[in-house]
């Protein structure tokens, strides 16, 4: 019997959710951090969406948030001109890094020793977290605000996307741009897949896939509406995308065919990411919510329970929350 996707809504934020990131898989599961314009980024258990804690301290909208692989550290980028590093176990603020303008993006290296930041002052900065008082290494070149900055290629290179409609690949040591990609429209999101060396870039209605070393184009797919964010499944069999029309689209990566589309959000989708095990993907929207969606609809995972038709009508179904079969007035 065909199953209908039941997204899990994570409430708590009071303003649009603009960024989200998963940690790696840790002995305690995996975690999710959400950046919100209400200035209060939240940490959640990745497979259930259960709230764990809120990082309090920023005095402005938080535009970017990230976790390190082990989910022991978090970093956030905010409109209060600072990036902050947090202890993701205690929720305590560990470091505040002052910038000269709104910070939009933060990213840890694999060993969590360096933090990359980028924002409206157009400069990429690399902070050595073991020497936080030291001046960061700065890489200039972009001619407008940086939207996203990511470590790639074994943390030896940096990918940055800016409002100047370019994506640049920098060498960390020479600080020079090794490759540049130019677009006609503003790049709305960027994701780096280390295993496979793929960069996922969205602009206009297009989702583009590029080689992370050469920035050669692999393929592009066009969606029915303007796309703000896309994410490729770890096994690279599908990717999901969301944007202006509030819907989440799921595509087959190999054939480029649209497989499914899901309605649910009440506002444009700003960010979407697959979990590290690929079993679910999370979307953040203008409506202030995060929603978790199953990759394999109907499978028992996290809070979702695979229920056979006989069980639904039996007495055992008390423990299950079944979406009610009626329309409220």
């Amino acid at each position, binding site marked *: 019997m065909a199953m*209908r996707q039941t997204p899990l809504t994570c409430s708590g934020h009071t303003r649009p959710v603009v960024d989200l990131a998963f940690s790696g898989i840790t002995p305690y599961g995996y975690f999710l951090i959400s950046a919100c314009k209400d200035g209060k980024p939240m940490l959640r258990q990745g497979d259930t969406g259960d709230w*764990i804690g809120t990082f309090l301290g920023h005095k402005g909208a938080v535009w970017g948030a990230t976790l390190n692989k082990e989910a022991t550290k978090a970093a956030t980028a905010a409109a209060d001109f600072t990036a902050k590093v947090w202890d993701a176990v205690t929720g305590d603020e560990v470091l505040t890094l002052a910038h000269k303008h709104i910070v939009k993006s933060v990213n840890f290296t694999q060993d969590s020793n360096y933090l990359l930041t980028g924002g409206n002052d157009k400069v990429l900065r690399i902070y050595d977290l073991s020497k936080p008082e030291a001046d960061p290494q700065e890489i200039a070149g972009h001619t407008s605000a940086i939207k996203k900055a990511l470590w790639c290629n074994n943390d030896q290179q940096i990918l940055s996307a800016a409002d100047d409609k370019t994506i640049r690949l920098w060498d960390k040591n020479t600080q020079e741009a090794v490759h540049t990609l130019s677009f006609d429209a503003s790049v709305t999101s960027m994701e780096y897949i280390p295993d496979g060396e793929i960069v996922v870039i969205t602009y206009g209605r297009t989702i583009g896939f590029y080689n992370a070393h050469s920035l050669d184009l692999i393929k592009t797919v066009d969606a029915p509406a303007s796309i703000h964010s896309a994410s490729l499944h770890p096994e690279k069999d599908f990717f999901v995308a969301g944007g202006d029309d509030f819907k989440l689209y799921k595509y087959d990566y190999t054939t480029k065919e649209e497989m499914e589309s*899901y309605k649910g959000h009440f506002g444009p989708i700003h960010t979407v990411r697959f979990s590290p095990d690929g079993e679910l993907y999370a979307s953040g929207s203008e409506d202030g919510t995060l929603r978790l969606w199953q990759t394999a609809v109907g499978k028992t995972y996290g809070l979702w329970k695979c229920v056979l038709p006989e069980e639904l009508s039996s007495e055992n179904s008390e423990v299950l929350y079944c979406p009610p079969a009626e329309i409220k007035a």
Partner: protein
Amino acid sequence: MTFILKTQTGYADAALILNEISMKTPVSVLRLPRGPDPNSRGFDPNSPRFIALCPTTLSSSSSSGAVDEEEQRLRSDLRERFLRTLLLMTDKQVEFNMHEKVRVRARFGASDIDVLNFQVSGLETPLGVQKEALLRCQDVISCSFEL
């Protein structure tokens, strides 16, 4: 017969579903994700992850215990210095700065146990020298003397 299903996707979908007349069953969930606690910022110190990854703090109560010990040590140090100062002041000419711009000199005798009054002799006042007097400590801002 029209089969109407309301899913978690909300009212906006109601019209769509009416048109679709879909027979798909929505996936069941055990419960909804837990939301934030309105009274705290979270990061439960009793969670297995916290306990395992924060060995230096042990538990939250003993971490404040360590801070308290340090504070107590500092407090005792300060108290000891104060008491020794009072001892040194005995029988010396001391100048007392008091409220309302009052500055008087006297020979310090002793303090009471709660440091509410200082017993002094030969208190020099604008009205003359008072052979014996008690100075109210809460009126004293500071006092100085030569060792």
